[in-house]
């Protein structure tokens, strides 16, 4: 019964390897007080939860059928798309911080305000087929409701590690610097996801 929770707890550190690089620059780029940070984290986690529940629902419904279909190579392609999506969102968010008034930066600010970014990036990481996620996925077999429930428990197990990000406001003293670093990192990260992990790898589709 509690297996998904334990699984989440034990694979959580690996989760951080995949979610951390998205979450850390995201929150660093917009440093807030404790309360604001809490709310932001909540938004991110909500996005993630939606992703997980969705995954639980679909997997519960189709069971092993989908998993069999999800051969590792298909999975590879799915990851590619999700990298590009995450990259695009981070890029937009990074552009939004540039001081330019008009043009792309302004559009970015409109399309991707911070709060939306938190929610959507959460959702995207929630649907990311990282190893812990796949380990969990193979265990869901008995119907959509149970599937959603086990993914919910799994979510709780893995999310505990993300609470570390609540420590960010304690670094208030270096707010300026951290924010500046976070924003540049955001841009670079977005570019890397979108272009290098995404577009440049498209050649593999032929395989």
């Amino acid at each position, binding site marked *: 019964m509690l297996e998904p929770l334990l699984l989440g707890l034990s694979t959580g*550190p690996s989760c951080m390897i995949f979610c951390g690089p998205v979450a850390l620059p995201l929150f660093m780029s917009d440093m807030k007080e404790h309360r604001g940070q809490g709310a932001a984290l909540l938004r991110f986690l909500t996005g993630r939860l939606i992703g997980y529940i969705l995954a639980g629902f679909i997997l519960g419904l189709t069971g092993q059928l989908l998993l069999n279909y999800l051969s590792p190579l298909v999975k590879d392609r799915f990851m590619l798309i999700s990298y590009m999506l995450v990259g695009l969102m981070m890029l937009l968010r990074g552009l939004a911080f540039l001081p330019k008034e008009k043009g792309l930066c302004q559009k970015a600010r409109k399309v991707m305000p911070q709060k939306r970014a938190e929610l959507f990036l959460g959702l995207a990481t929630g649907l990311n087929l990282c190893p812990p996620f796949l380990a969990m996925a193979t265990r869901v077999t008995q119907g959509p409701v149970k599937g959603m429930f086990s993914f919910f428990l799994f979510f709780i197990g893995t999310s505990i590690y993300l609470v570390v990000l609540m420590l960010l406001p304690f670094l208030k003293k270096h707010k300026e610097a951290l924010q500046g670093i976070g924003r*540049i990192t955001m841009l670079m*990260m977005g570019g*890397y996801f979108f272009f*290098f*992990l995404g577009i*440049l790898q498209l*050649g593999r589709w032929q395989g």
Partner: protein
Amino acid sequence: MKKTSSALSIPQVLILLAIYILPLMFFGINAAGSGELPYALIYGLYLLTLLFLMFKTGKISKYRRIFFVSMALLFFPAFIHDLIIERGTMLIPQSTVVNNENPFCHIVIPITMIPMILKKMVIFPGRLMGHYTSIYSMLVIWVFMTISLGRGWCSWVCFYGGWDDGCSRISQKTKLHMDNRAPWIRNLPKAMLLFVVLGSLITLTSIYCEWLCPFKLITEFESPTNLRNTVALILMIVLFFGTLIILPILSRRRVNCGLLCPFGAMQGLIGSKIAPFKVKMDKSLCISCGQCEKHCPSFSMGKNIRSSCTLCGECIDLCPTGALDIHLRGKKRIFPKAPAFFKELLQPRNLFILAAFTGGTIISYSFAIHSLKLLVNLF
């Protein structure tokens, strides 16, 4: 106020050189292979001359730069020659990757650090031991150098840094102003470090080596057989000429080392906390002439001296009042009341120069004499 001269007297210089000769003999001349002895002696003499001049004139940066640039220039002929002997090409052949034989360089250290600590895994296809470019030997060298030199590594020991350091002093005039105090310049190195560390975590491979390292051009790179590698090759060439040659000439700053290198950024963050030597400013002497900020090649001088200082000595030499000097644990003189002879002899700056120059000497010796020999044989 007139600057007091930091030049040393001949007996003082000789004492310091005598100390330097020990490691020079042991690691340099003693380690020369058969037929390399003449070159080892020539190189040793060259180093001794530079060190002599550095102490005698009290000018640190000028002679340091001559040494640092010659080290960078002597590094790659020997390295490339070895590669070609070992595997026949400068391109990274797949068999090298399959057998985990890629040379591990210090710049990868920050990138591989987190998986190393968390999972005891090195995310780099290098040799663990038994080779001069192996993972353990690089790690050990790094730990010891950080303890003693901190970011001084980046002006005295690194065999890459000479490129942009040299180029940053080719032109007399700054043609492209890069403002030390601009926030993005301050944040870029750390952002770069954070980016390559986090980015490498996702794919568990060093993304710096794959995409961003300009030094691959003078060491080894992948053959551009597909789109991905072609993009990497173009990026590498742009970064090499852009950040190591053109931008440094225009801006008189070390654009790669000061802004982009993740190892440099890490040394700035960790090394400057650990190492006992630091450049410090005596505020009471400073007349705010701005020389130091204008000429610091590493973007390290703003309102204060930043942790990214590479202890290159440029500002120390230029400061008209002598407000800047290398301090040891915050002390400019260890024994201020001692007789002048000892007081000057035991200045922290002398100790630092000896330590740092020794580091550069040892790391460069084998490839320098190797390259010298190759170059002589060429003509």
